[in-house]
């Protein structure tokens, strides 16, 4: 995808995301934040491709570190968000 297409996606996602996030009540700000945190682990998709393309051992090692860190982010983030949201009970 060319850079203009990506820029359009960036702008659209920012605006729609902002609109939706501003509807989240402050009650849920902590889970929102940890959930968003988990989403930023999406960079694992980039790390997977980059690691495969990596030729030198150094790059591969870096790739492995990136995958591990991003997966900690994804798994840890979503699970801990789930743990928190389970506690929100009404009357």
């Amino acid at each position, binding site marked *: *995808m060319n850079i203009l297409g*990506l820029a359009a996606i*960036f*702008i659209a*996602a920012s*605006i729609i*995301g*902002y609109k*939706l*996030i501003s509807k*989240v*009540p*402050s*009650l*849920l*700000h*902590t*889970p*929102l*934040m940890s*959930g*968003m*945190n*988990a*989403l*930023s*682990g*999406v*960079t*694992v*998709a*980039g*790390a*997977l*491709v*980059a*690691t*495969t*393309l*990596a030729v030198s051992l*150094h790059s*591969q090692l870096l*790739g492995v*570190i990136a*995958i*591990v860190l*991003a*997966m*900690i982010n*994804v*798994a*840890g*983030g979503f699970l*801990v968000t*789930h*743990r928190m949201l389970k*506690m*929100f*009970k009404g*009357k």
Partner: protein
Amino acid sequence: MIASVFNMTTLFLICGILLGIRLMSSPRTAKFGNLLGALCILGGIALTLIVNDIVSRELLWISMIIGASIGYIFALKVAMTQMPQLVALLNGFGGAASAIVAIITMIANPANLSSSTRFTAVLALAVGSVTFSGSMVAAAKLDRRISHLPVILKGHMCLSILLLVIIAGLIVTETLIAPGAVIWIVILAAALIFGIIMSIRIGGADMPITISLLNSLSGLAASIAGFAIGNPLLVAVGAIVGSAGLFLTQIMCQAMNRRLMQILTGREVSVAAAQKEVTLEDESSPEEVITSEPVQRSNQLSNEDLAAGILRQASRIIIVPGYGMALGQAQHQVKAIFDKLQQRGKEVLFGIHLVAGRMPGHMSLLLVEAGVPFDKLVQMKDANQKFSSCDVVLIVGANDIVNPAANTAEGTPIYGMPILNVTEAEHVIVCNMDTSPGYAGVGNPLYQDSETITLLLGNAADTLGSLMQKLD
């Protein structure tokens, strides 16, 4: 063909994530929203593996399993009180991963990279590295491994600006003039140092803003890395996270009456003005309060009886928690008092300030964990309408967020900050550690016994525990 399938699936996943966020707008549906988000990210990983035909690479699977297992352990082991530091830590990992993706992209194919790819890659490297080091410092502060007080170096501001100029200059140099590994390393180092000095000068109570900002940066880093590798999923999801962090940063700043730049560049406290205003408000000087500690102690007994009596007679009560509740681990005692008062047919609500605690939503999280139903948690705007018709406000470990000086003491750092107007209630009971000023450094006129204010000093958990006994 494959490209269009990839793009359609990516679009589908992005919509799924947005729908998930939409579901986060209510506590009843938020859990499904989070699960949907998790499924979409899993889908994104699967799509990446399939489209690039790398499903069979064992190294990738092993790395993913290691990472997921560590994340799993983190998520299960962490106590709710440690949530701020976990969020900061995970933010940092996300930033680091994005920075590394950028580095590998540049190393893998240095000759054939277009200048736009190189530009986005070095930018992702810079933003990701700032996120990483800034988050690590924030996590260490929140975990009390290092002092939570702001650390200000000599020429802090100049150093920050210098580093930013170096980073910006090198990004331009790398893109337009001389690409090369040496420049990447210098950018990496400068960005790491910038992250550290950005975070160390931010104090404890400004942490909600810092974490929000770092959250935003971690998303931005992923998004820019997405540009570098031409991946629309990274670009979109990173952008969503970036705007989420930005939104939180904005509302936290509003709730603290601060500008983001003020926090990043350090507060300009006019201490003299603050003190002057406070003495107008508050007759007793801080020294007097400290030396009168033993007298306070004997007073405290009668104050506790007094407070218990007031609570017994009240019919509408609002509890206002602050960071002191989290610090003293008093949320369970608060819940016990809440239950007792409710059993006696009283209407009990919680007034929650946006920035109470060390991260957005901190107070709500602790109270909900202690078992308080979420519909009893009232946000500032609604709470402020209820104070005038309420008999007693019970403050637990809150200071700046209820300090009436914010409405009156012009020239002090908190002047103009939206607060919970607890003095509109008929009576205020204050359970705080001591009467020293809060983070903003402005004395609190509430910390004085009077006809309408009862002071209970000491560890909130202990104070509430004995208050409980008196209520029997």
